[in-house]
């Protein structure tokens, strides 16, 4: 491998859970953080980042409870970033289900600007009826819903209305025509609880992101759900994403299973047209 060769190889790779920042995010270093994601993505070999902006990230309304205006401002910034990086960035439109009419309008507005999915935070528990109209619209427009999840909620935590795998499973059962990406299996809480919670709900697809790199997590996810249900992703820690790819190689998955996790499951969920640089042909050529 040369110094310039992607660390995770040249086959397609979709990060299904990424974030970018913007001027209204309340941190002066936001351009550097965005640049760092692209720098590390290129080094790893990420073909597409599927990203969202979470309102003002707490600057003018809470990260997990963005005000309608902050959600819209963040979505506008995200659309601009995606448009400026059309070759490698796709995006989720972020909405707060407490503001139903705004959320529905925002999804339409986001799709018109190129959004390919819906991002739900922790503004309302996942099985709350307020999420139903959003999921109906997402299903009608074939937009996967990435839902922030705490792996096994054992109590309330500040600053978010946390949901766990059981909550999301109840929502997914109510909306069998929608697809749900369960956020960051390694992102805090007990992943071992999540796997059986969603095993039999086949429209729930956990992403592998999060700072957690517990040994045994990937093996258990593969054993319980199989490679067709898992999406590779990084969220806030890209080194853990690279580590998980390397660990999956050590586990010894077949090339087909690796391709499913790296990009093919994402292509099935978002539609093949979402990622034109990803194909089995590009995989075999790389």
């Amino acid at each position: 491998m040369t110094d310039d060769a992607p660390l995770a190889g040249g086959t397609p790779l979709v990060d299904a859970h990424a974030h970018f920042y913007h001027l209204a995010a309340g941190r002066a270093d936001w351009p550097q953080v965005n640049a760092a994601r692209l720098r590390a993505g290129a080094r790893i070999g990420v073909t597409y980042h599927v990203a969202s902006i979470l309102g003002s990230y707490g600057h003018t309304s809470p990260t997990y409870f963005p005000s309608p205006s902050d959600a819209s401002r963040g979505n506008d910034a995200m659309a601009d970033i995606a448009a400026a990086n059309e070759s490698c960035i796709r995006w989720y439109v972020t909405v707060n289900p407490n503001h139903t009419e705004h959320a529905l309008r925002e999804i339409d507005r986001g799709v018109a600007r190129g959004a390919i999915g819906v991002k739900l935070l922790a503004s309302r528990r996942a099985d709350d009826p307020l999420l139903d109209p959003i999921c109906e619209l997402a299903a009608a427009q074939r937009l996967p819903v990435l839902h922030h999840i705490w792996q096994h909620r054992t109590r309330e935590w500040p600053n978010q209305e946390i949901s766990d795998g059981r909550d999301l499973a109840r929502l997914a059962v109510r909306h069998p025509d929608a697809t749900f990406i369960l956020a960051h299996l390694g992102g805090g809480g007990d992943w071992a609880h999540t796997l059986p919670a969603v095993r039999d709900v086949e429209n729930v697809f956990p992403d592998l992101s999060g700072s957690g790199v517990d040994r045994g997590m990937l093996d258990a996810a593969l054993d319980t759900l199989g490679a067709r249900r898992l999406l590779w992703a990084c969220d806030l820690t890209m080194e853990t994403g690279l580590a998980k790819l390397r660990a999956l190689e050590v586990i010894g998955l077949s090339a087909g299973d690796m391709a499913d996790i790296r990009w093919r499951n994402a292509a099935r969920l978002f539609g093949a047209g979402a990622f034109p640089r990803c194909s089995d042909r590009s995989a075999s050529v790389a």
Partner: protein
Amino acid sequence: MIDCAAFIGSYPFRHLPHPDPDVLVRVLAREGLDGAWVGYLPSAWHRDPSGGNAALFDALAPHRSVLEPAPVVRPDWPGWERTLRDLVEQGAGCIRAYPMHWGMSPHDAQLRALALACGEIGVPLVLTVRFEDLRQRHPLDVAGDLTAAHVRALARAGRVRLVVTGAGRDLLEETHWGLTPDEQRRVHWDFAWIWGPPEDHLAHLFRTVGAERFVYGTHWPLRLTQNSRANLDLLPTELREHGITDARSLRAIRKTPT
């Protein structure tokens, strides 16, 4: 380069796949590491560490060219000074202590005495900030994370050699910038829990604290060994030729145990 933060043995709060020394030897070879300081994981929860230390030395005996024991010395246990000398004489690579699990405050005199005794002999004292993320802990796992106040107090105690594993950026900075330059040089850190890009905490710390303050630790078998290597691989180009410290260089027996 060695791994300063590996373990064997079971963990009380979840199943760990094959936490055995022969597996660790293969993992180290795969990761390109020359060896490891190896603790006995159950010892953190034992009142009397002597049984765990004996099990550790026995289990590592066939692999001593690669795996150095990291036994536990509990400074509120009778005869700990003799235990320390014996363990060093038997070839301990470092000594482990778990003040949070023993209910020791940052200014505990016995903990201070242990750190100074390790420093006097020339063997590093390894402290563990955490085994697991706070958000996933079992209800009975209530020891809490090691605090910056503990590390600062020990670093200020005198001629000590501390290796702190499992710290994040906040704890590390709160400690480092609360010490004099001489005291800072008494502390080394692993970066197993420090975030890489896009936040680039590790890159920031290499620039501000210095790469030489860091040693390599994986926290196997709790965590993926690939994570620490991935963190180094994703550093910005100008930091990639890092100069982290090999933990082996921290062990310098100055005094023949008697």
